[in-house]
């Protein structure tokens, strides 16, 4: 970032410039201190690129035959994402309801809604997975629950925002013509939150495919289990195969999710 100084001279007076330099110096100092704190041996650092390169060389070429073998866990990974997202939505609906300003019954429920939203979001999927593996044992069930709980905050927050943006006039119109409460939901509310809903669901599913690739490291199912095994048994070409496969499903789900969102706007 050596160009920093050359761009600031005409825009700032001396004091601001001094402050900028100070900030840069402090940032560099903190980074250096952090590096010291990590206590990493320099030889390791120097060797790191070579080690990474070596590893890649050992991995190449990928084991194409293994590709067929990992199809089931890949499907399982996607399924964990689908079911986890679905479950997250089910759990999120009431939370979104109490977390939206215009539908929450009172201040206490609103605070509870906000707390659940922030709380669940702050715990990483792998930590949820650790817990659920303790509770339900290894396997995809724990993975689905981990993905679901991890997603609650995100999903509830966006659905709550969708609910807050509802145009009350449309609800009023259905009531005014004698529609039942169910009609009000089906005609007055659902069409209005459908795009937000589909958007959230597909977007979160996309994120969850990525999340579902790692929960296997702690035994919660999906392709991660196979990656862990392949590494433990030094099957390097299988490792590369799995990495490519993960790349594939993540990119494909991203495309699919973007397509679906566009369809429902």
């Amino acid at each position, binding site marked *: 970032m050596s160009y920093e100084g050359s761009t600031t001279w005409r825009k700032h007076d001396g004091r601001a410039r001094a402050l900028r330099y100070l900030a840069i110096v402090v940032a560099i100092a903190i980074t250096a201190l952090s590096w010291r704190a990590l206590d990493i041996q320099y030889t390791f650092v120097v060797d790191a690129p070579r080690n990474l390169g070596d590893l890649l060389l050992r991995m190449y070429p990928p084991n194409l035959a293994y590709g067929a073998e990992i199809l089931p866990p890949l499907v399982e990974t996607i399924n964990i994402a689908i079911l986890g997202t679905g479950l997250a939505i089910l759990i999120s609906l009431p939370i979104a309801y109490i977390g939206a300003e215009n539908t929450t019954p009172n201040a206490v429920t609103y605070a509870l809604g906000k707390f659940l939203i922030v709380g669940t979001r702050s715990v990483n999927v792998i930590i949820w997975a650790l817990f659920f593996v303790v509770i339900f044992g290894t396997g995809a069930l724990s993975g689905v629950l981990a993905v679901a709980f991890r997603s609650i905050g995100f999903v509830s927050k966006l659905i709550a925002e969708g609910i807050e943006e509802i145009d009350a006039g449309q609800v009023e119109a259905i009531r005014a013509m004698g*529609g039942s409460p169910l009609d009000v939901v089906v005609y007055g509310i659902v069409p209005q939150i459908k795009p937000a809903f589909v958007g959230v669901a597909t977007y979160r599913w996309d994120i969850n495919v990525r999340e579902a690739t790692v929960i296997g490291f702690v035994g919660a199912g999906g392709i991660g289990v196979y990656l862990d095994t392949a590494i433990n048994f030094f099957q390097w070409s299988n490792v590369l195969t799995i990495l490519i496969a993960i790349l594939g499903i993540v990119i494909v789900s991203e495309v699919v999710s973007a397509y679906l969102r566009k369809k429902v706007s």
Partner: protein
Amino acid sequence: MLTITDLEKVYPTGDKALQGVSMEVDGNEVVSIIGPSGAGKSTLIKCVNRLTEPTSGSIVLDGEELTTLSKKELRKTRRDMGMIFQEFNLIERLTVMENVLSGRLGYMGSWDAFRRNFDDEDVQNAYEILDRVGVGGMENKRVDELSGGQRQRVGIARAILQRPKILLVDEPTSALDPETSFEVMEMLTEIAREEDIPVLINIHEVELALDYTDRIVGLTDGEVVFNGTPAELDENARDTIYRSGKSREETGTESQPQSQNESASSGISDASKEKSF
């Protein structure tokens, strides 16, 4: 016939929006309510179908007291009151056809409503009314693709398809440009006459009230300060309505002979009544 007697509305905020309003809508007359904004026009209309709960007073539609209806009875009675809104209040993301047919929701089971399983006859009528309000052929368009004028036409079609005993209309043209406003008012009053439906309509623009309605009620600060034919709305009366209550004492007398000028204005061509759909 709609009869409103001593209607009062006090909002929880303490706003006295209506202070003893009495008026009637009879036969198939088109009655407009004019008045400055904040006078209580919207509140009055919404009290009739109880989107807003009146504080006290009585509202009788064709012999039925509305203010005491239970929730279930209210739903049934609301089917008889078509409402047209200032901001259209259409279901923006549904098709024109679904919006128009939603006027029949009060008559449908929830499961049928969910599946959009509408009556054949309703569908046929919906096609026809769309034609009549001038948006024929647009049934498969989504409402959010339409212009303001087109939206209000769909709003009118929806209310008409309800086959109501009265139309409640809240500033139908405030969101439209002047030219479209006239078109929409023209069409609305014409169809109401053809269908023999009385109309209670809030209007902000006095011009439209003069041109298209049979009787004008002036509302100021929640009180009726004028009730007469368009011809009777002279400068003096306008002043009373829009000068917010000053010299109300003198002009208040004008609003006494309430329903006397109705018979004169409700003699709409009988021939048009046969043109039902």
